């Protein structure tokens, strides 16, 4: 993140340390993770201890301290999706991509994530690939979608 970009974010939030959560959210949205260098700068600019920033960054689920892959695959593990078989979908993906949730494949292609409910429980179980919702999923369909064998009905959301 460039100095000017950070400047803009800080200004948007009035350089206020109480807006730190919103500032981190904006950095995450722009960079897809929280680069250490940027966090150090934020710390110095707002006079918020770096420990406090890391406390926030590791506490909330939305933040990631490492760069994410080109594609983000998110499995909903909310209760409705769980009772409809989300665990088996997740297992299939873990096995196939050889990563655990929160991790990125070594070729930086995929990041596997989980989320607790996307508010589309009627479509359970749900998998989101790069922001596109795929409802009523099966382990095998997700895998073949990733392999590009079959394009699932793509739905804007």
């Amino acid at each position, binding site marked *: 993140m460039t100095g000017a970009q950070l400047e803009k974010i800080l200004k948007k939030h009035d350089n206020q*340390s*109480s*807006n*730190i*959560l*919103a500032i*981190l*959210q904006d950095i995450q949205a722009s960079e897809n993770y929280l680069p250490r260098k940027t966090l150090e700068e934020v710390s110095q600019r707002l006079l918020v201890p770096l420990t*406090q920033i890391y*406390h*926030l960054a590791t*506490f*909330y*689920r*939305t*933040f990631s301290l490492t760069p994410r892959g080109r594609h983000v695959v998110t499995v909903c*593990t*909310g*209760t*409705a*999706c*769980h*009772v*409809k*078989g989300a665990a*088996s979908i997740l*297992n*299939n993906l873990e*096995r*196939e991509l050889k990563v655990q949730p929160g991790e990125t494949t070594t070729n930086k292609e995929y990041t596997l994530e989980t*989320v*607790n*409910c*996307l*508010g*589309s*429980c*009627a*479509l*359970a179980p*749900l998998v989101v690939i790069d922001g596109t*919702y795929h*409802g009523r999923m*099966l*382990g*095998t369909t997700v895998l073949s979608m990733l392999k590009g064998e079959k394009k699932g*009905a793509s*739905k*804007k*959301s």
Partner: protein
Amino acid sequence: MHLKSPDDLEQFRTRILEKRKAQDTKKRVVLCTGTGCRGAGALDVYDAFKKALGNKSDIEFKTTCCHGFCERGPITIIEPEGIFYQRVTPETVPQIIAETVKKDQMIEELLYQDPQTEEAIPAEKDIPFYKKQNRLVFGHNRLIDPTQIEDYLAVGGYQALVKALFSMSPEEIIAEVKSSGLRGRGGGGFPAGRKWESCSQAPGDVRYVICNCDEGDPGAYMDRSLMEGNPHRVLEGMIIGAYAIGAHEGYVYVRHEYPLAVENVGIAIEQAHKMGFLGENILGSGFDFDVTISKGGGAFVAGESTALMASIEGYVAEPRAKYIHTVESGLWDKPTNLNNVETWANVPVIIEKGAEWYSKIGTEGSKGTKIFSLVGKINNTGLIEVPMGMTLREIVYDIGGGIPDGKRFKAVQTGGPSGGCIPEEMLDLPVDFDALTEAGSMMGSGGMIVMDESTCMVDVAKYFTNFLKDESCGKCTSCRDGTLRMYEILDRITKGEGKEGDIELLEEIGWTTTEASLCALGGTAANPVLSTIRYFRDEYEAHIKDKRCPAGVCPALITYTIDAEACIACGKCKKECPTKAITGEKKVPHEIVQAKCIKCGTCKEVCPVDAVKVE
């Protein structure tokens, strides 16, 4: 247009209504683009309608947020007849316009079919899912484009605010809310009027009101749908509350995963400002009030009142002990009144129609209606709003349409991770704060997850405990370690390593976690475990003693086999099996080599004739 008095508002409203009356008989297309329908492809349908209708169409096209029947999304309604089309696809859009909109012909395939009578039902109001509901709070969603304040005004919006500001004193409002019997919808069920009163009487000049839209309960999305679909209703409730309490600043705390809610409430705040419902001297009353949005970061515990306030202040969302009440010392140590989205959304109707009218709905101890997200193994998934006192049986069977695939009902889970599972014998229990707590569950914020015979109750307990151990902020030992130890034991049990005494140990840890924890996360964390032990002890025993998972869920305790009689030797499972554990050729029935099987369930998933059995 800035409205400076109640008269201004009424004139403006009259103009809107007159304009609409003139168009009342014209055809209108209403498309739901709420989160549920979006997931099912509503935005593609939206594009198709836009394209088919063009820019200059005299057919009004309108989008709203969630109507509730998400199972059938994307939903389209053709007005003025109120024809209800379900599972609409972009491909069917031209047909809808050509036949229904232009020629008044109904398209059978798009109508909802009653599964029992197999009859097609054209009108929304006749569909069983809607029939037994009382949509006091949620009903307007279907009439409102949340980005258009005129829509809210057309259904009588901000009328209650005028009444509150110009003909009631703050004390009278509080008395009205108190006698309405409204209890907090965020989970605790604390009487709203009493909370308002304490906050209004706490010493100090500066007070805050907060709306809690963190909704961390996985499997629940009522607050989101209200906030997305009818944000002005929530704001109106907050403004009335702020006036009664004496607050001039308010916050709406929305979780980060709800971008549409953030967007819509942001637009609503801006419009309310422009028109004079927010800001200085609201409608000329002399009362000032402003609202700021604060975005959460996706932590369940952030929904707890003191943690939420810490989060708004820019700290980590950790709760604190509540020997000092937040109504006396909350946000920035000032008296603060926090209520849930649905609680706030109930306020306008109470003020408008009066406490006496409102308190006729519901039971002795629980008044009004409650919105639930009815999900899981149920035919009609969606958001429902029912009067308090309705039985769980009516909800599951009459509104929910029962269990799919001819399976047997096993339990319904209410109250989210803090709640418990209620078994079939207790289905006649009414939805009522006290009755549900007595049964070992709780009302919670409104998650209602239906489970059938193929749901393993030990697995469900493990699921919630896993969630809670991850979400525990770690500040107090009993919650941090209690949830972890319970999880470890449950994990062992589901892996076939359970031992004699495990159930008793779970009960003991559960009790300690409940009693010794700082906030209600730990205080209720044992509920999923304790309630499943209470009602489904035999399932625990089957796992521990017989090393068997009766529901066929826990991988370590089940075996997959192929029924040679049923198998048609098609080769599908053999091809898909990730560990090549399946043998057999064309015309030779397949067989699973148990030593290689990792129990991923792929073969069962792909088998076209259901020949794969789980035991």
